């Protein structure tokens, strides 16, 4: 690893929901860092806390403690607008994450306006070209798009503020395998073109193996092991649970 500041540093992150007797510790002292330009995966079963880490980073899970740093700067409790220029998220279900009564143009235009961009018309056009949709889709509504096209719009929306770090929460698990291949290729191209850093959650080890350089295996809110993709390919997992997960998925 080079001496550059990591894009994301997570140290001793605890995330919990509820109070007192009902308190659930969803993430327990998780620590990892993601280098600039790296693609890092989080894998584990449902309920293992992998998505919760992403939600804590973006501020969707308000109860957390520990240290979160993006490009060397600590994330404050109240996230300023400048934070969302650096960090954006793409959600799992493209059917749920787009407003059903807003056209693609409005979704993208509003995001750009909120982030104080001018020249919105040109930027919307460029975003659509970037995600391979083209101008024909600009004035369509979500119900006029297929699942893969919707996910492309969601990715375009995340790219609108020109972020450095993209949080991907199971970006392809709601899609067919043939469409999954298109979206994974698109994400790989975008990372190369824009120099993005990815933090990607997935339950599919072969998808993570394809997309990521390193990955963390999670169980019951804890990171049990951090593996490189080479370790994953050679089945070189030390922890019993990661080996179990590898066996189950291959």
């Amino acid at each position, binding site marked *: 690893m080079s001496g550059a500041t990591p894009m994301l540093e997570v140290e001793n992150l605890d995330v919990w929901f509820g109070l007192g007797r009902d308190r659930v510790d969803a993430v327990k002292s998780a620590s990892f860092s993601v280098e600039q330009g790296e693609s890092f995966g989080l894998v584990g*079963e*449902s309920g293992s806390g992998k998505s919760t880490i992403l939600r804590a980073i973006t501020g969707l899970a308000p109860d957390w403690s520990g240290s979160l740093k993006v490009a060397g700067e600590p994330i404050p409790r109240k996230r300023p607008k400048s934070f969302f220029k650096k960090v954006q998220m793409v959600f799992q279900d493209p059917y749920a994450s787009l407003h059903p009564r807003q056209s693609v143009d409005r979704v993208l235009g509003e995001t750009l306006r909120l982030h104080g961009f001018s020249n919105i018309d040109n930027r919307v056009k460029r975003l659509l070209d970037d995600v391979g949709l083209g101008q024909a889709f600009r004035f369509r509504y979500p119900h006029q798009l297929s*699942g893969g096209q919707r996910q492309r719009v969601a990715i375009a929306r995340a790219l609108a503020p020109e972020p450095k770090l993209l949080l991907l929460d199971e970006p392809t698990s709601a899609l*067919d*395998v*043939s*469409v*999954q*291949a*298109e979206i*994974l*290729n698109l994400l*790989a191209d975008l990372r190369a073109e824009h120099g993005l850093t990815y933090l990607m959650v997935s*339950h599919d*080890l*072969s*998808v993570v*193996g*394809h*997309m990521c350089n390193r990955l963390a295996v999670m169980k019951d809110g804890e990171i049990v092991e951090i593996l490189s*993709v080479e370790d*994953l*390919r050679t089945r070189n997992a030390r922890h019993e649970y990661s080996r*179990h*997960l590898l066996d*189950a*998925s*291959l």
Partner: protein
Amino acid sequence: MADPLLDVEDLWVRFPSRHGTFDAVRGVSFTLGRERLGIVGESGSGKSMTGRAILRLIRPPGQVEAKHVLLDGENLLEKSERDMRAVRGQRISMVMQDPKFSLNPVMTIGAQIIEAYRLHSKASKSAAYTKAIEMLEAVSIRDPERVMRAYPHEMSGGMGQRIMIAMMLIPNPEILIADEPTSALDVSVQRQVLDIMDKLVKERGMGLIFISHDLNLVADFCDRVLIMYSGRIVEVCDADKLQEAKHPYTRGLLNSLPHLDAPRERLDVLKREDEWALAPSVSGRI
């Protein structure tokens, strides 16, 4: 093969729409013996519609047409709605994708299993209770007495799906149709549920129709696979020979999957060709 359990010939499912009739399933033929038959395809390929059409679960304005859908020589399409009810659950059962939507949220699990069982047999309540406990044990649920008293929201997804399987198998049907039974589950739980289903199907000599979008899972789990594309069967092959499939669509699907052992820069993208949709359906009859 000796007499098949189910014999479907030239099955069509049509939905009238403003732009003319939409054919969701177009002339599909296959037979099912005492085997595990997989149906794979993408969303919209008509695989779920095929499963539902067999049970005549397509609601109007949708129409089901076929030369015949024979269950042990009886044509299901000629049966009255009343007779169909004796077939559903009793002789052909169906397990759906998400247990959350298939179980009644305001009834205890015990009450639901017992109700389902007593609908089809004249067993007494206590006999039904014992049978339900037995069945829950058969699907590897620990502490079945507690589960009988519990409500669906107290169950995890994997448990819910096993409960559904238990409920569906109690009347000892001849055929089980499983529509994406494990796609809502985690990989590690997926295996467990499949193993249980496999064991029960084998022990009871049932026929299984396993509908899934997951090629590898089907290749692993089934004996024979039908690959569907836009309402038609484009290829039929033995599950262990799926990797040698010839149809460009099947090949495309297989190649679009990332593989851990064969890393690639880019994944192949499926290029659809019109002729796949136009070519006549391949028969899956034996």
